[in-house]
């Protein structure tokens, strides 16, 4: 498993280098993985990489690109938009010659439409946002500050908002509320994988059985 760089389109029409973690042996079957978003990306990173290792053993290449502004990216998160992220993932798919795509949780809203693929436990923008804002309200309350969903959202749409350590810009917050998973993908729900979703955990974890199950669904589907 190696890191690779790829040219990612920037909002001003230029291009910036982003990283992707790759299991790439130049094979015909190539899965692009659009990661989960924000704090869920951290909690699901181990599972994602464990699935990549299993796919490698099954003869399938996989590519896990960074979304601009996230993980190792040098771009400012505040300047990113969902439409920009979709364009970035389409560019990554083209650059790496992906034949299939997997979107994880919020990543399901960003998968390149034309590729056949899967959405693992897809989530909607509105619910991701609601939970991030709720976490901020709870954290603020512990320090004696009273905030509400409506006032924070209003403030965010005007000048951006910091949620759980992520500085989100007004355009992202505005577009995110109505964002839903890209239609057409096959949905892999948690009941298929078994156990509790690792994105729910307070601390990042891993689960061998869940990685086995998700990799099996993908490997069987890609081979078909």
């Amino acid at each position: 498993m190696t890191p690779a760089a790829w040219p990612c389109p920037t909002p001003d029409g230029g291009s910036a280098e982003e990283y992707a973690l790759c299991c790439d042996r130049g094979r015909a079957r190539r899965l692009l993985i659009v990661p989960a978003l924000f704090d869920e990306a951290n909690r699901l990173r181990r599972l994602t990489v464990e699935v990549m290792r299993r796919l490698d053993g099954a003869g399938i290449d996989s590519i896990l690109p960074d979304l601009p502004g996230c993980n190792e990216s040098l771009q400012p998160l505040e300047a990113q938009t969902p439409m920009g992220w979709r364009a970035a993932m389409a560019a990554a798919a083209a650059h790496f010659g992906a034949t299939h795509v997997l979107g994880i949780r919020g990543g399901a809203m960003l998968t390149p439409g034309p590729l056949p693929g899967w959405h693992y436990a897809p989530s909607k923008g509105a619910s991701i946002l609601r939970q991030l804002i709720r976490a901020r309200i709870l954290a603020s309350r512990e320090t004696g500050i009273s905030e509400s969903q409506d006032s924070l959202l209003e403030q965010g749409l005007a000048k951006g908002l910091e949620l759980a350590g992520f500085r989100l810009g007004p355009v992202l917050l505005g577009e995110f509320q109505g964002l839903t998973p890209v239609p057409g993908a096959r949905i892999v729900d948690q009941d298929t994988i078994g156990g509790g979703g690792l994105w729910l955990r307070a601390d990042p974890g891993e689960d061998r059985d869940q990685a086995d199950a998700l990799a099996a669904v993908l490997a069987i589907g890609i081979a078909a």
Partner: protein
Amino acid sequence: MPTETDQLLRRILTDVLGLKAGQAEGFTAETGLFGHLPELDSMAVAGLLTEMEDRLDIMIEDDEIDGELLETYGSLLAFAEAKRASA
């Protein structure tokens, strides 16, 4: 006989806290949650409440959430039961 809400709530806590199978079965009304379980920070509490909304089919207002609600398993269960009864 545990109620359906009771069973669902134990499942949710098992998933959120990453408990071993059966561990949540040992929770009593007096089992301490927030403050006793180090895993429950504000992000985890937000996740717990959102998961309760989804699986119990209820809506929780942010101003309904206070320290007392999450003090013990009993208080959280009573809240969930009342929410479902009025839904």
